[in-house]
């Protein structure tokens, strides 16, 4: 089981996440898909750390988790305000700004 399979998995996770962002309508689910893409990169980082034998990758993974956490804070705050003013968290309702 060479380490490349982990990379294929990470790439797969990334594309699933991206597809989720495009397809799903609910803001929370879209946001979760973005988190999935971030974790895919985490997996890639850890695999590369193992391949290169250096721990930089793992350090980077920590940072991504911290950043992901901050993003959750900010993201959910925005989604909640949208939900409270519109009573729906659907991404498609937000189309006042167009053309």
């Amino acid at each position: 089981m060479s380490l490349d399979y982990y990379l294929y998995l990470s790439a797969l996770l990334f594309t699933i996440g991206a597809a989720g962002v495009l397809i799903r309508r609910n803001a929370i689910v879209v946001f979760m898909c973005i988190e999935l893409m971030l974790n895919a990169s985490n997996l890639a980082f850890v695999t590369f750390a193992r391949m290169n034998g250096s721990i930089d990758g793992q350090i980077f993974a920590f940072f991504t988790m911290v950043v992901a956490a901050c993003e959750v804070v900010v993201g959910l705050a925005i989604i909640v305000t949208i939900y409270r003013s519109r009573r729906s968290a659907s991404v498609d309702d937000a189309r006042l700004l167009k053309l």
Partner: protein
Amino acid sequence: MNVTSQMLVFLIAIPLFSAALLLLGGRALDKVGHIIGTLASTAAFAVGVIEFLAMLGRAPENRAVTQPLFTWIEVGNFNVGATLLLDQLSVCFVLLITGVGTLIHIYSIAYMSHDKDRRRFFAYLNFFIAAMLLLVLGDSYLSLYVGWEGVGLASYLLIGFWNQKPTYATAAKKAFIANRVGDVGLSLAVMIAFVQFGSVSFSGVAEGIEAGQTSSLALNTLGLALLLAAVGKSAQFPLQAWLGDAMAGPTPVSALIHAATMVTAGVYLISRSHFVFDAASVAQLCVVIVGAITLLFGAIIGMAKDDIKKALAASTMSQIGYMILATGLGPVGYAFAMMHLLTHGFFKAGMFLGAGSVMHGMNDEVDMRKYGGLRKYMPITFATFGLGYLAIIGVPPFAGFYSKDKIIEIALDAGGAKGIILGSITLLGAAITAFYMSRVMLMTFFGAKRWEAGAHPHESPALMTIPMIVLAIGSVSAGFFFNMGDRFINFLSPIFHSGESGHGEKEHLLPPIVVSALALTAVAIGVSIAIAKYGRGKAIPAVAPSDVSLWTKVARRDLLQDEFNETLFMRPGQELTKALAVIDEKVIDGAVRGVGSITLDVASGLRKTQTGFVRSYALWITVGAVGILAAIAVMSL
């Protein structure tokens, strides 16, 4: 050898200054305008006479006199000085222009007395005199060109003098445009001269030709260009359509410009460039052909015209055809052309003034069918017109006989088939001239009165008859005076070196006496036909009969010259203009506006991609990402 004199510039300056004075003077000069104009013309005539006498005083070889004024244009080695040249050829013209001009000025005082714009008329006449003098006194083709177009402008102003009538304004415009077509030829000639000989002055070009610097092709093109110019100005075939309509101008104008001076400018140009035509045989042949065609063309139209002025105009066209024909017959022809030009100047101007006084009497009626039996009511006009008539048809003692006869003679001597054809054309022309001139005489002065109601012809005042009388005397004596001992030929020989070829010993197709006899028989035939048709109480219908031969109908419409010009140039021109206007609007401007509207459409199209859906933006980002991935993959292969 060149003798300089300070007087030449006054020839031009006096009339020019007086024209400016009269024009700028405004209403204040109305009462005295005509006198200033006439004085200016007489002063110019006086200067001309003084110069002429001074010239006679000098030995033949240094008779030419020049007066350099200032360098006009000087760029690189294109150097044109504004210098004036008076030699034997130009002195004839100067005297003709100022002499006949002064007479016509006097005539106009009376003729235009009722017109409130008389001052402006005299201003234009003086401007014309000045321009014509500049034309004949210029020492280079370019200064000739200035006079050339100046004269064109003067004729435009004078033909369109009463331009409140639209037809007269169109006639003026038509004349100017036709002259402009000719001027194209002249400017091309100047360019060819500059390129071939590096100079545009007559002497420079002459030396260049003698030195043989150029190819015959260049010389022939130069000759043809000069011919085109002459044709434009002297209303020769094919640019003759404007002369008929030019009669819209007052009669003194027709007398001065369209009989004596301007229309002969073409003959002057060809004679002045004799060194070109002598060396360019093809061009010379064309000159002869043009002369012959116009000769017949004018004569035929003359027969069909009922308007007295249009008839005289057609006859002028035909007589100038004679002169052009003569200039095309080699060195000897120039002198005879010149002589015919001078004599024609006398009798044609006289006849036009006669026609003017007839119209004056018949309150401006021009249709000869409304005249008849006027000889008793206008004796002096009848006498002077009659003498002119006798001169033009070439009755021996009168001027026309000497000059036209010589032209017929040298036409016959042109040698071989060419001589016979030309000779017969000139003889046929003489016959037709005799016919239509007699027709004019008979319809106007003889036969039953066909006046309109309220017409009571009376003799013209003295101011009009005196010039007519002087001109009549001229048309009687001029021929004899010029011909005595070939005085005129010898006077001009240094210019045209016609002396060496010795007009005497050349072998003749027919001895001179036989030629004169032939000419007289032709004239007799013409006169008798005219008398048969119009004389002895024949009833001349007041309205032109319509059941006439096709030939007469066509001749009445000026041999369809206007229709020809319109269908060939005017109408296609107008269509092209309309088409170009549409193209400019639709295609070019449309293209510019099109670019604008396309960008706007693309803009609103692209604007719609901004749907407002977050997911579509995300889609754009993914598409972009995939695009870049693919690009990098491709780039790195």
